[in-house]
């Protein structure tokens, strides 16, 4: 496990180096200034999604759920569609980026807490109810977006379409400091909580018998998840299956159930996939598609594999 960890770390550093310095050319200062914020954005988003997914799966005691599957992408797309519909293309494009980002984070955090809060309502056992609520809300949001998309003009719809896929190409540098502080804070807190998360994974009765303040920890964990998901979605857009892919790989690679090992491994896998994938896309494939499409494709296949293999409950 430690050797794998070391190898992946080296691969991460190497791909970061590649991304930053490959094909710099004479105007290197300008190019570096463009690339560095994007790299930082990818590292933050990768780590945020990795930690959010792992913590969420521990709280739900289920390895197939991810916070994004629970109607999050639908809510994000609905917000974009609604903004375009209300403000028009020029109004949408003219929105202050920080205001838009702030509003998205707040709305999504609140929505997540309301949704995940239903978990707390019934003794934290009722995962089926949570999933159903999430799926139904997702359908509701999606139907609203489709309805709005029907009544806006086709040009405006194209703008919505562009905003509906996660894009690492247009990360806004001005948002990075806030995102960075929030993400790093939440990630550090999760790492510090690792031993308690191990106990949480044993289920409510055992956790309480072992003296864990179970319900309080669940609430705290859900706040962490909500904030991380909201911030990363607002920064790059919705990615549904990425977290699943990452958590599955982290479990396979560590073979451990200790969060002190799982969380760093998940962060490493996630950031490596994003940075290496984006390097490949920008430099080799010449931006022919979006990275998120490929990640979703691979993630979807992995999801099917997990289901068929019966590894998960």
């Amino acid at each position, binding site marked *: 496990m430690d050797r794998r960890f070391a190898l992946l770390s080296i691969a991460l550093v190497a791909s970061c180096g590649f991304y930053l310095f490959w094909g710099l050319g004479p105007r290197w200062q300008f190019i570096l200034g463009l690339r560095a914020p994007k790299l930082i954005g990818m590292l933050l988003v990768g780590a945020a999604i990795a930690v959010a997914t792992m913590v969420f799966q521990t709280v739900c005691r289920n390895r197939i759920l991810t916070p994004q599957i629970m109607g999050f992408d639908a809510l994000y797309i609905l917000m974009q569609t609604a903004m375009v519909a209300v403000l028009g293309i020029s109004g949408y494009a003219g929105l202050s980026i920080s205001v838009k980002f702030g509003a998205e984070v707040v709305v999504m955090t609140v929505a997540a807490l309301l949704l995940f809060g239903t978990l707390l309502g019934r003794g934290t056992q009722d995962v089926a109810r949570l999933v159903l609520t999430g799926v139904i809300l997702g359908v509701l949001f999606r139907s609203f977006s489709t309805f709005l998309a029907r009544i806006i003009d086709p040009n405006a719809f194209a703008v919505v379409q562009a905003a509906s896929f996660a894009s690492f190409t247009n990360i806004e540098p001005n948002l990075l400091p806030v995102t960075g502080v929030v993400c790093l804070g939440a990630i550090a807190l999760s790492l510090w909580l690792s031993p308690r998360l191990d106990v949480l994974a044993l289920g409510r009765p055992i956790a309480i*018998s*072992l003296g864990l*303040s179970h319900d309080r920890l669940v609430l705290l964990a859900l706040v962490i998840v909500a904030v991380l998901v909201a911030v990363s979605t607002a920064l790059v857009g919705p990615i549904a299956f990425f977290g699943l892919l990452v958590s599955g790989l982290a479990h396979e690679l560590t073979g451990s159930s200790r969060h002190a090992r799982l969380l760093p491994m998940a962060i490493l896998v996630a950031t490596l996939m994003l940075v290496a994938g984006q390097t490949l896309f920008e430099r080799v494939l010449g931006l022919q598609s979006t990275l998120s499409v490929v990640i979703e494709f691979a993630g979807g296949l992995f999801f099917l594999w997990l289901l068929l293999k019966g590894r998960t409950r």
Partner: protein
Amino acid sequence: MICVKNLSHSIGKTSVLQDISLEIPKGKVTALVGPNGAGKSTLLSLIGRLMPLQTGRISIDGSDIAQTPTRELARRMAILSQTNSLGSRLRVRELVGFGRWPHHQGRPTHEDEQLVMQALDALDLTALGNRFLEELSGGQRQRAFIAMALAQGADWLLLDEPLAALDMAFARRIMAQLVALREAGRSIVVVVHDINHAAAWADHVIALKEGRIAAEGPPETVCTSQVLGDIFDMELRVTQIEGKPLVLHHL
């Protein structure tokens, strides 16, 4: 001593426990018996603070469980509920190791590891220590959970149906082990399904029926054909063997 006062509990609109007051003696093996749905598990869960109290008070060795910090309670009592589903893939040794968590909060010492070894040994799990729990049979898994509760080293041990899924050899061994723990100064409260295990091993028997206490006392007074017949609504014969009541409930 565990002291329960005016405890009532309902789940939805069904009343599970009705105004129960009782005392569970320290340093004894106490068995909770009664028909299905009598409220035994609910009573045990409430004592073990797995569910919030609705009405009534429970105190353990003088401290109110609603007021005492949960971490403090974890060093005084261990509770094992009937069904346990884990979210993580664990080896037997790792699971039993978690029993020491209230003492080390994530940083096990050498002493903790020793106690884990002893608990594994006590339930004959040493050879299975490196196996994953999902690779074990129901009875072996049950033993692993009991070992975890043992490793916790609390004064009070609350077990909900520990004998379910165990074969008769292990069922007897577990009961003998509980008696040995009592000799070592621990107090045990155990929900038992088979009345004869209660009759043979317990010092004190509490029988519940429809959420109320139907009988209470040493096995000799509770395990009579009269009392048990009323509780279970059936006719049964009770004989004696080596001074202990033997209930012929299957004939």
